[in-house]
């Protein structure tokens, strides 16, 4: 079992830049957030905002951890056997849990959740919003980009590994939900 170090000095989080993987720029990220908020998916919108604006690795990891948690809840809500995408949602939820864990064991993740800006904790999302899968695709793409960038630039090898692994899980979620994979 890998032991985690919670006292590692956090590195600076890189700003969004052109990267391999899904092509999502800052404007697009903010659009995702706006889209989620307009669809009533407030937790997703909030976490998208935090992912977009994170300027330090601990902040990004804190946001990524929460993003995977929100994705997990959202995907589990859609595990309906009468839906033709049942298998995809079940599988994507597994990858969301794996992604959360990959972040959980990065040394730079703060031991406790960072304080949220005042007023962010709005009403809980209404279950089963029709646009949720689309929002989940967008957030997984955002996670993939931000975590891939962090993996390239983090100082601690364990942070790099955790970010790279989590980015891979985010990519799998996107592929499953878009049906673009093998």
């Amino acid at each position, binding site marked *: *079992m*890998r*032991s*985690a170090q*919670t006292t590692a000095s956090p590195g600076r989080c890189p700003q969004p830049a052109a990267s391999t993987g899904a092509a999502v720029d800052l404007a697009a990220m903010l659009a995702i957030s706006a889209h989620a908020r307009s669809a009533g998916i407030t937790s997703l919108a909030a976490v998208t905002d935090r992912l977009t604006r994170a300027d330090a690795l601990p902040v990004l990891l804190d946001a990524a*951890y929460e993003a995977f948690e929100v994705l*997990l809840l959202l995907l*589990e809500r859609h*595990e309906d*056997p009468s839906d*033709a*995408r*049942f*298998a*995809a949602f*079940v*599988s994507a*939820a*597994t990858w*969301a*849990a*794996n992604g*959360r*864990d990959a972040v*959980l*064991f990065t040394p730079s*993740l*703060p*031991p*406790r*959740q960072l304080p949220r800006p005042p007023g962010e904790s709005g009403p809980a999302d209404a279950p089963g919003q029709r646009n949720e899968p689309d929002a989940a695709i967008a957030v997984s793409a955002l996670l993939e980009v931000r975590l891939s960038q962090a993996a390239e630039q983090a100082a601690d090898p364990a942070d790099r590994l955790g970010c790279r692994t989590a980015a891979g899980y985010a990519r799998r979620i996107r*592929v*499953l*939900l*878009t*049906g*673009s*994979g*093998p």
Partner: protein
Amino acid sequence: VTGRATFGDFLQAAHRQLEETATLHGAGARGNMDEVPRSLLREIIVMRHYLHDITATLHDLPARGRPMLTPWFQAAVQARDALANAAGFLARPRAWDRPAAPAASPLARRLDAVTMSLLTGRDLLHTHFAARSRGAPQPRSEWGLVITSTQVTRALLEEIAWLTRHSAQYSANVALLPSPGTSVTAAERRQLSAACQWLWALDASVRTASKREPVTDSDRELLRAIPVNAILGRPAVTGGEPVTVVYGVLASIAERVRYLAWASAHEASRLPGVTAASLRQVAEASTVTSHHCHLLLNALAGRTAQIGLKEVSEQLIAAANAAADARQTWLHAAHAVRQVTTGALDDQPALADEVQELALWSGRLAYDNPAWTLASGTGSAVRGPESLVPDRDGLPGAVAAVHQACHTLALLSQTEQERIHAASRAGCILVPTQSLTDNYDMPQPFARAPVERVDLLVDRYADSWRASREATARVELAAETVHAPSRVLAAARRAAKATPSVPGADRTDAISRRAQPGSDSSAVPVSAPGPVGQALHRLGVTRPDLLSRAADIDRAGERLIIDAAVEVKASRRRQGLELNSSAGATTLINHALMSGDPRAAALLRRPEPPAREPPEREAEP
């Protein structure tokens, strides 16, 4: 079940040696007295190893529950003693060494071939157990539990009796035939005769047990179906195969998963390196597979209704509903396992990958898309009944494929519980600190899972096991009704959980109920008439009434000899008395023993002192 070598293959090879008798008579028998005793001894030694396996298992039971009085336990003990006595008469220096060259005698060559088949068959059975220095062996597969069951034990004893009966028949003839020009002594002939007579005593013990508690066709089928415990290669497939090929692919993958599930549970008990990623992948794929089973069983119910199989259709509808229940419990297990974590990376990727294959190929059967994947989403329609079973003849294969998948899910729900228990014992089950109440003051983002969280997780898998077991039991009924090749799994499951020994007692044991207890498959096909009947044959008599009278006289003579021997033995006045004093007397005793009367063992004497048993070494053909 899916192309692996089975115990039945080796049993059949042994049978063939003793069923084809044309070359065992006449000139071909010359020289036998030099080689047959040695070859017969080697066969007896291997059989003794089988009996050792059987009785070791029985002796491992607690003394209070040991079935001392069951017919088959008695038969096993008597058979073991009979083999020891037979070996005692044939023991000679280096008798069990590997022969320098193949035997010249046709019979000896056949006995050697039987020995080789039995040796290999025993090796096959042993692949299902982990080596243990003492007591009953530890099962390494689901078949390990079956091999030690009452059903398989009695079927195996019946087979051993069949082989000893036939081997004794031919060998006894050799002992009685004159062989001019050889240096064989009368004592050597008497020794061979005595050994054969003990083999008939073994047969009589088994026949007695069989009369009290018959061996069923289901028992025999189960024994023969035991496969070698080895993982099959992945089927070579491209994704565009016809549906009938996919049946076999799914069954083959299901077998691979079961092999890996046993292996991973065994591994976890020794080295608990289980990861959440692996547990999740298995739970997720099991959820998806049970969903596919539900879809497939519904389609099969529709197809069987179309072709007028109303009973099967109702069985399949019930199974489809049970599979839906199983799906829900697997989904809950998947949710529960997402709420815990472990620190390790992948532990058993082979198992997790193979369960994913099960989900994939059950999906390719359930959906009308040969390239279906988890990501296919709305692009694939559920396969219709006619597409799933284009031809009525394909129905058993289709049912077998789903049966194999359901059976595998039931096993996974058990083995995954074992893996979780092992990980929990090792303190490897963790939870994110954020998921704990503020009472937990942890300096890290994760902490050891509270016991109630682990209990909840295990409860979810226990629910999956109950629901998957129920779904499998429902599919079993349909599998047996349509004679699906997978129906042996049902018999195996019943045997493994020690069902009642009375045939037909199990509600689903349709095969046992079809068995005909009156049909005496243990009859000796090579049995000759008694001495009086043989004399009439030599005179060319063919009149049925005369031959019938001769048979009556022979039977009366046998009874007289046996009754007398029992009485004399009871008075302890026949210690060491040799009854094989002449060819005529030997013929009479042989015939009395062949009658199957267990009291005929009173005619036999034990080997003379020192009568040391041959060393317990494996024969090396």
